[in-house]
């Protein structure tokens, strides 16, 4: 029955490929409409990807996108839309920065302490939405959007010099973290430094796959996402599952800002990257919630981000990249649904055909063996 496997791979790849192709074509149309060369900007951006310093930037950026997208994906796998990853990671990064500036333990304890702070802050923030959903039936979409706004205010408050803030010129910071909390990067010479916590992103990706596909909990979570009613009948407590998934999602989200915080800025300031949580939504969509897919999607996004500034030097607008990101998300949603339905119908047809042809599992010993050896 190899062909059903092959087919699954084909279906998994077809969606993104169609979406990307459509997005490229539409972006080219936008360029033509504005009277520009529709091909040159892409060749400039592709060329950028060959420079090692840009590559380092892409990898560093992608690591944060990856973690944020994993956080979103956990929610997606059980039909929860955690749109609040943005607030969760910013607040978590700030708390980690504050703890890092005030506590000074040996590195072996300091770094785990900072990671734990970030995880707990993120989980706490998403947990509020989870509790509201479970106890009062508040939609997690609404609650997490509101919590994003509240997080912004909380951050503004914590930045006050009378609270934890340290003014550096015109910039609000949380003060420099103690060096024991800095995570050393991989020195790439002139190209720069790859954040040490890129490995954390990889580990999280592996853990995500293992938990979802190889544990009882992961099965329950996926079942809840596939059919809430069937999951409940199978013995999953839907409320507990909502809360757990929300906490997990927020906990991972809390880590999204740490690669840059512990690897580069060492303080939470006005310059700290924002919006990663929202980009994570698009990346999780494009990556089909699969750890490998998300990795590709995160790299693609980071490439669009880091290669586009060069366009300004060639008389193109770098916003082309943003338009493209938007178009990708749009075409992803459409193409995935179309491919999913097409795949389902196609399989039904093929199963029908196989049965009609007498290829029934267990019909005779030969086919059984063949299947068993799959």
């Amino acid at each position, binding site marked *: *029955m190899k062909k*059903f*496997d092959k087919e*699954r791979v084909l279906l998994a790849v077809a969606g993104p490929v169609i979406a990307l192709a459509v997005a490229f074509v539409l972006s080219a149309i936008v360029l033509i409409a504005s009277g520009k060369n529709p091909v040159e900007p892409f060749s400039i951006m592709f060329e950028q990807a060959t420079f090692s310093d840009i590559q380092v930037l892409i990898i560093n950026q992608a690591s944060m996108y990856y973690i944020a997208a994993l956080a979103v994906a956990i929610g997606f796998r059980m039909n929860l839309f955690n749109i609040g990853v943005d607030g969760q990671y910013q607040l978590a990064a700030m708390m980690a920065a504050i703890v890092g500036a005030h506590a000074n333990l040996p590195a072996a304890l300091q770094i785990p302490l900072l990671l734990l702070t970030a995880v707990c802050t993120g989980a706490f923030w998403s947990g509020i939405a989870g509790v509201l959903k479970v106890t009062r039936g508040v939609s997690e979409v609404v609650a997490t959007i509101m919590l994003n706004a509240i997080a912004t205010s909380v951050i503004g408050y914590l930045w006050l010099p009378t609270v934890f803030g340290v003014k550096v010129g015109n910039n609000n910071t949380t003060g420099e973290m103690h060096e024991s909390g800095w995570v050393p990067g991989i020195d790439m010479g002139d190209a720069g430094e790859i954040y040490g916590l890129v490995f954390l992103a990889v580990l999280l990706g592996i853990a995500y796959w293992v938990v979802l*596909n*190889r*544990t*009882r*909990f*992961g*099965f*329950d979570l*996926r*079942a809840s996402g*596939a*059919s809430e*009613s*069937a999951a*409940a*009948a*199978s*013995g*999953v*407590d839907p409320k507990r599952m909502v809360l757990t998934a929300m906490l997990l999602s927020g906990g991972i989200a809390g880590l999204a800002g740490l690669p840059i915080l512990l690897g580069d800025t060492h303080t939470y300031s006005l310059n700290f990257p924002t919006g990663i949580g929202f980009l994570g939504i698009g990346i999780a969509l494009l990556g089909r919630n699969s750890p490998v897919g998300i990795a590709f999607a995160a790299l693609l996004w980071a490439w669009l981000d880091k290669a586009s500034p060069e366009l300004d030097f060639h008389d193109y607008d770098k916003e082309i990249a943003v338009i493209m990101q938007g178009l990708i998300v749009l075409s992803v949603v459409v193409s995935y649904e179309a491919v999913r339905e097409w795949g*389902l*119908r*196609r*399989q*039904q*047809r*093929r*199963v*029908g055909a*196989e*049965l009609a042809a007498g*290829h*029934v*599992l*267990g019909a005779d010993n030969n086919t*059984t063996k063949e*299947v*068993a050896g*799959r």
Partner: protein
Amino acid sequence: MTAVELAGITKRFPGVVANHDIHLTVRKGTVHALVGENGAGKSTLMKILYGMQKPDEGTIAINGEQVSFSSPADAIVRGIGMVHQHFMLADNLTVLENVVLGSEKLHGIGAKARRRIKEISERYGLGVEPDRLVEELGVAARQRVEILKVLYRGATTLILDEPTAVLVPQEVDALFDNLRELKSEGLSVIFISHKLGEVLSVADEITVIRRGTTVGTAVPAETTPKQLAEMMVGSELPTPETAESTVTDRPVITVDKLRLEAVGGKALLDDITFTIHAGEVLGIAGVEGNGQTELVDALIGLKHADSGTIKLIDEEITAWPTRRRREQGIGYIPEDRHRHGLLLEAPLWENRILGHVTEKPNAKGVWLDPKAAQQDTRRIVEAYDVRTPGIDVTAASLSGGNQQKLIVGREMSHKPRFLIAAHPTRGVDVGAQAAIWDHIREARREGLAVLLISADLDELIGLSDTLRVIYNGKLVADADPATITPEELGSAMTGAATGHLEHEETPEDTSRSSEPGEDEAR
């Protein structure tokens, strides 16, 4: 004069039985029954006639004129009307509002429409009151509203899709009177059913459909239920009858004064008390919506009792969550397998894990054991004759009967002590039905206690050791399946009879009593 003539209709369809070279001629002013087992292709055919689907080949002629429908609107213009099995009425609107909804242009929405509704109602003896709220109406009255809705739109040919499935025998008789009224006024009715007794009593002509093609037509006067049934299934009929009693005196599940309330305090279940012993099948009869779903939910733990207790052997499980109940040996064949029994887009082997994720062979500690689960799925597929090319295909690509066999196999594989079987053979073909009955009987011999809920009275009477009737959330009557007839059970299902139902021997009954055995053609 022919009202409808279908010739050479063929419809190819993924995975399921399609229509193949179908011929059907309906004369004006007659009731024409279309019979066939579930999944034979009746519904597809009617969807084609009603314009919901286009045939790949073949022609449709209405009143001798060849037509081509691209939507139900086209069919309605030609005088075709459909009464669906599941009513399409808005509960919070009045009958009048429901009838005019979407056809406001015909007679407006006011006095003229009301007059028209009354006129139709009187003419065909439907007894519909235009100003009642639909939510106040019973099932039979709702069905009459649906029929009126179709007539209001000018239908001259009515398609009724399994209209008796939701009715008790007495209501069925009333419906048949309505149908006779319709045909005496020159309208034609296409009556879809798999209940042969009903078909023989109401139809003027019968067309039998099997495996997607018409296998013959019959006239009721010249045929017997047995002949019809054999045309339908093309072979000897299975029966649900169990041979000898295996009931023991060891109680497995004991429910005492169970009460379940809706939000607001209205009782959904009240004072439910019963005991099922090892080796016993307790059948629950009742019109759908009288608390069966809630009873199942309370037993499997999806809803928790507001008062009363449930005991499994000698442990009280009233407060247990669903998972614990399942781990401790409560098997569950859900009423709606798509909503509660399967992950449609997941492969078969993941569906084998569903509901038993904490048990062997699916898990080792907190880890899943996909290899063992896959291995065991192959065993189930073979032992329960699930027709599939492999265990990696999605559950959605199997036919209903095969999905159900997978569920039965899965539940039986965990050696349940108590099995909840809600409509275990609904929507499955005759072969699968017989197999499922066999599995239940076999497990019962080995000491399984079964709660059987079914709308198929023959199945209930045939499989059960004890029968109870549920009405309005209460168990109102009990009966001995060895002597009771579907008609007697039916009157208790409307709430007309309570207590212990005794079979009364009347001359009419003696002729009927031979019927149930032959009537199980589904």
